[in-house]
């Protein structure tokens, strides 16, 4: 009886202590591309817990009101968290061992986003024909300048 009681105390204590353990040591090891910066839009433990709340909220704002702020945009998540293989090609974020899939496999939570959403960044989100107006807009708003987009602009300028 005493043994069982001791075991219970130990279990309780370990539960209490595990609550105080740093979030970083919880869960599987993630492949994180630090080249794009060392910080997520929120601290990691908050993102772990609340990423879907933010994404859901943003999704409705974007879909219905055209609000396309970058902070909680799924597209920006992918831009940062998609890794490249040895050949320099992007690996889908929902592939086994990749950023999204690792935790979702660990927690047995189905990942539905990527039945519709792109799983890797596209070289350029801009139409190949970059007009002056688009270029001006990109300069003002610091839109992502991908290599092919810059090439297109250079080609256009060279042609003149």
């Amino acid at each position, binding site marked *: 009886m005493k043994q069982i009681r001791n075991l219970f105390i130990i279990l309780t204590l370990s539960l209490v202590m595990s609550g105080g353990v740093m979030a970083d040591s919880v869960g599987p090891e993630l492949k994180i591309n630090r080249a794009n910066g060392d910080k997520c839009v929120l601290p990691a433990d908050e993102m772990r817990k609340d990423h879907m709340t933010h994404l859901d909220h943003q*999704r409705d*704002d974007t*879909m*219905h*009101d*055209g*609000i*396309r*702020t*970058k902070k909680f945009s799924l*597209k920006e998540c*992918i*831009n940062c968290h998609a890794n490249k293989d040895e050949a320099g090609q992007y690996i*889908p974020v929902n592939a086994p061992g990749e950023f999204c899939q690792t935790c979702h496999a660990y927690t047995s939570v189905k990942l539905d986003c990527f*039945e*519709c*959403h*792109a*799983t890797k*960044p*596209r070289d350029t*989100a801009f*139409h*190949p*024909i970059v*007009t*002056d*107006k*688009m270029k*001006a*807009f990109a*300069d*003002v*708003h610091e*839109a992502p300048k991908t290599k092919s987009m810059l090439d297109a602009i250079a080609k256009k300028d060279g042609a003149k």
Partner: protein
Amino acid sequence: MNEQKIDQYRRDFFSKATATAATGAIAPGVMLMQVGQAQARPLDEAVSDKQRWGLLVDSNKCADGCSDCVKACESENAWGSGSSDEQKSDASQKAQWIRTVTLKNKLTGSEHQLPMMCQHCEEPPCVDVCPTGASFKRADGIVLVDKHICIGCRYCMMACPYKARSFIHENLHDQAPDVPRGKGTVESCTLCVHKIDRGDGTTACAEACTHKAILFGDLKDPNSEIAIEMKKHATTQIRADLNLNTGVRYRGI
């Protein structure tokens, strides 16, 4: 609330002040930049009904056999030839956001072609029949499908008089980051909503049309090119008898 009003007032004041300053003094290149800026809505501001986006298609200018607009749409929105998906679907099942239609006058034998896509109705029948609220019209007049809510019942496809919508029959993997598409949902022309929100001020089809047959613009702005053209020339709505007040208008049919 009050603070917001003051902020709005300040914003208006400053935007007018900079616009005036720019128009007066600076070189044409820089002025162009200012125009681009004025058109771009701040990223965190909701769309409003101050604008209504639309297209004017001049079927006299639309060249027979040309399908540049369709190809541009495919590559921009990653469907059809712009994507490696939908290999198992047959032609009647594959997505089709825009197509070219040839009209023939049986009496005179004259033929001409025009592009056909979602007409972005003011009173969209697809929105009326949608049982979940997935099919909706944005404040600026763009008719869209919220695929998070769409259950794939395809009532909207039956209701659309323009046959503008498609249903996705198979798993997709090759979507564009700005254009989510997926199995079990209905989709159609979005009027390149991601481009509009980015402030490009055009759609892929209008941009690609070398014959200048497609004109994109704000139907509510009397100074916009599209509004001026529509004031000058007689334009037609397809199936005007349905009183849908379409956002896509045609000339020469």
